[in-house]
């Protein structure tokens, strides 16, 4: 029916007449269940395959590139794709990020193997357990909403320098949202599940129940600054945009939160607590490609010319001090620095050991958040970010949750929060609610902020 994905890649390499060529094939499958009010609403399983051809041409002052991606199923379509890519690259200007293609190096990837795939079968046990939960929630006169998704992408990467690499990236999530019948009370659970076999629906559903019970008493609080415990998912929401803003070039150009008068903030202490902000493709919970897979250059951070380059683990912040900003190979060469390459995962750790429950127990008066929503950058100079609390803001008094509180709109800079945090909990594998469609692999600690800025009240529940 369809030609083997490796055959498409090799056909493209052999058809190439450019000075350099990179081919990336990705075989993607996904399956999902979506539910609302104790009933399934939509479902699906999808398969797709795309091939990207990057044709590079040597010019006096660098290389130009033609980058074309198409959904392709047969070798017959490959030749046309290569021709289109070459036509685009041959006439293009020298790319800002141009760099020599990565040389061949040995690796033990299973390049010849079949692509990995997922299907609706991964939900077999989960769907049965979910059905039982629907029944239980119906009896309790409460409503369960949510989304379950599992994905698999197999990447095959080939360069004209002889490099062949392959990586399988699984991804998955469960989001559960419990509500009272009138929607006025709401609680949330989410987790990143790259392997769906270890989901315990009954246990996480019970946690949502427990939080709904916390809302038995509700009180109204005004806007203002509150001692606030941010759970790991909320910290993930706030830190992911910092990663996207961590461009070395923007800082060098003086147009970043990491720029300062006449230079960058590399070497500056950002926090007194010993935060280490790290990206490691081999982190067992956050496994991501150990080499660059780039189908579209972005900023001076990721580059199509870097495809196949090994992606070592890197510390962006070490012991509270900014140590690295992201730069691709081309920009590193131009500025005679070392590349600091994008990794599709990150962790933040300050050596904390406390659980959320322990942090609550040691709180005299403060707010415990569940998660955040609709985060947007307000000011790039400070990375000031606005957004809302959602699905459970709880008042903590004398070490225990005593009531649910209205939602708030906040305005805060994540970089400033690192500086102001007074306690950091244990780092946990988590899922950002706001950005998980774009960035799913994070491990984050809970953070205690003594004076979190709740700017205005939101009536939303």
């Amino acid at each position, binding site marked *: 029916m369809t030609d083997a994905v490796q055959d498409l890649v090799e056909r493209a390499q052999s058809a190439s007449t450019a000075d350099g060529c990179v081919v990336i094939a990705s075989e993607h499958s996904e399956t999902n269940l979506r539910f609302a009010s104790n009933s399934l609403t939509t*479902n699906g399983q999808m398969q797709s395959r795309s091939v990207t051809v990057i044709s590079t041409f040597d010019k006096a002052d660098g290389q130009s590139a033609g980058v074309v*991606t198409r959904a392709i199923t047969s070798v017959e379509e490959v030749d046309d794709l290569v021709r289109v890519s070459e036509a685009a690259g041959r006439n293009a200007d020298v790319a800002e990020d141009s760099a020599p293609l990565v040389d061949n190096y040995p690796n033990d990837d299973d390049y010849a193997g079949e692509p990995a795939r997922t299907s609706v079968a991964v939900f077999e046990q989960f769907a049965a357990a979910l059905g039982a939960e629907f029944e239980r929630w119906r009896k309790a006169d409460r409503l369960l909403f949510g989304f379950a998704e599992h994905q698999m992408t197999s990447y095959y990467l080939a360069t004209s320098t002889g490099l062949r690499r392959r990586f399988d990236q699984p991804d998955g999530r469960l989001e559960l949202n419990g509500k009272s019948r009138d929607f006025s009370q709401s609680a949330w659970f989410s987790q990143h599940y790259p392997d769906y076999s270890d989901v315990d629906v009954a246990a996480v559903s019970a946690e949502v129940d427990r939080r709904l019970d916390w809302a038995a008493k509700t009180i109204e609080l005004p806007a203002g600054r509150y001692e606030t415990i941010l759970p790991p998912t909320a910290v993930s929401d706030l830190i992911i945009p910092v990663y996207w803003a961590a461009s070395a070039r923007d800082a060098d150009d003086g147009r970043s939160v990491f720029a300062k008068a006449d230079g960058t903030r590399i070497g500056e202490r950002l926090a007194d607590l010993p935060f280490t902000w790290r990206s490691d493709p081999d982190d067992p919970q956050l496994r991501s490609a150990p080499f660059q897979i780039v189908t579209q250059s972005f900023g001076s951070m990721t580059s199509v010319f870097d495809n196949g380059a090994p992606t070592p683990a890197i510390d962006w912040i070490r012991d509270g001090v900014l140590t690295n900003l992201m730069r691709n190979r081309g920009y590193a060469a131009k500025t005679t620095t070392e590349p600091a390459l994008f990794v599709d995962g990150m962790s933040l750790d300050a050596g904390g050991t406390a659980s959320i429950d322990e942090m609550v127990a040691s709180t005299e008066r403060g707010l415990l958040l569940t998660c955040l929503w609709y985060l947007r950058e307000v000011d790039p100079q400070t990375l000031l970010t606005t957004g809302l609390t959602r699905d459970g803001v709880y008042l903590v008094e004398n070490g225990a949750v005593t009531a649910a509180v209205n939602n708030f709109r906040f305005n805060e800079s994540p970089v400033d929060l690192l500086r102001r945090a007074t306690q950091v909990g244990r780092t946990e594998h988590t899922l950002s609610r706001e950005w998980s469609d774009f960035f799913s692999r994070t491990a984050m600690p809970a953070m205690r902020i003594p004076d979190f800025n709740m700017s205005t009240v939101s009536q939303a529940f």
Partner: protein
Amino acid sequence: MSTFRCVPEIDPTFLALPARELASAALQRATELGVDHADFRLERSRGARLRLRDGHLESSSDSEDVGLAVRVVHDGTWGFASGIVRTAAAAVQLAEQAVETAKVSRPLSRDPVVLAPEPAYPDATWVSSYDINPFDVPESERVGRIAELAERLMAADGVDHVDSYLFQVLENKFYADTNGTMTTQQRVRLEAAFTAVNVDRAAGAFSSMRTLAPPAGRGWEYLVGTGWDWDAEVAELPGLLREHVKAPSVEPGVYDLVIHPSNLWLTIHESIGHATELDRALGYEAAYAGTSFATLDKLNSLQYGSPVMNVTGDRTIEHGLASIGFDDDGVAAQQFDIVKDGVLVGYQLNRQMAQAQGFGRSNGCALADSAGHIPIQRMANVSLQPADDGPSVDELISRVERGIYVVGDRSWSIDMQRFNFQFTGQQFHRIENGQLVGQLRDVAYQATTTDFWGSMEAVGGPQTWVLGGAFNCGKGQPGQVAAVSHGCPAALFRHVNILNTRSEAGR
């Protein structure tokens, strides 16, 4: 074949795909398997993105996605499957998979799916309105035009860096269903923007300002003289940026606002567009995009805003990003009222919700962003109507004693029930005694939806009306992206809360 418009032709390379054979195989198999309804889509989307930094090409990429999908209602339950292999056997297999998925889902489903009636459109074609397919323009010419404008900005006083981009899309959609409808459609859209950046190295500070040109359902002609004057806008931008850099920080408090369409479109999108999606009001999006304060029990009674507020949903407007001939339920494009004289009178619908909630007929808002996704209720071009013989922008400003004239969109955020929002902008001009007296900076306006629209004292005339919009409205799980336009006049709002974003940051 009935052709509603005869502007450009459907791309022959799309027409060459075996859509009819695949549809016939899939729908026949679905019928054999006893479905209540089945539809088939073959979709192709081409996209190209150029990014330039300081006038130099930073990134260029071109993509094409082709896929097919079968959706069924079987035993009252949805089933969906999509794939990429374009053979009759693969289409048959998708029909079987869709039915299989419906069966697996049946025990988890409660209310049977029934679709509102819609006439059949046996062989209809629709093409959006544009002159030049941007994919027919060589990349060197497109890069050349963007670079030329960027270089002009770079050469100006006070401009240290320029970010610019051009995105273009060509979408083709073939749809056929067991109701007898068969449609072939083509849409083109384009978006470009230039951001000028000023860096004060000594102070370790920077400021930026972006062009206001909206994305549009137009072709390459949009970049070279039709529908927008890029040369004039690029000539003006450096002066506006220099003034912005030196502008005083706003004193927070309550101000009257005159809001230009280049900013107001986004407030409409967030606080009216999403709030009047019936799937949200019914709770289908409760765990993700959110719900709405504008619940169904408030239809025809909720005072959404002041009596000068009239809002329509529209899939027919020329150059609208959400304009289309037929939606993915096979429903013909329409225009409909959402708010009339300030009162909520309508929602955006698909066939399932129209039937379940007694609306009779869908108003054509079911769309999927690709063959890989199931259609969900997506936003029409939701627009605020101007007042016939209404005031100009200058006249609106003349009515304000102490206020701010807000131009251009920037940061945006709204809560999950669409009550509390906060927006910034590109330019904030202080108004004193009816006159503009220089820019302010660090401004954000924040309000609750019904308070805000209730405070709208006047809408401008048709001469102030601009069709704004965005390529990237996200909704649904798995996430889907849609382009949508919002037209509006300039408008005058009284007593709106203004925050200072520097003091919010604790500085």
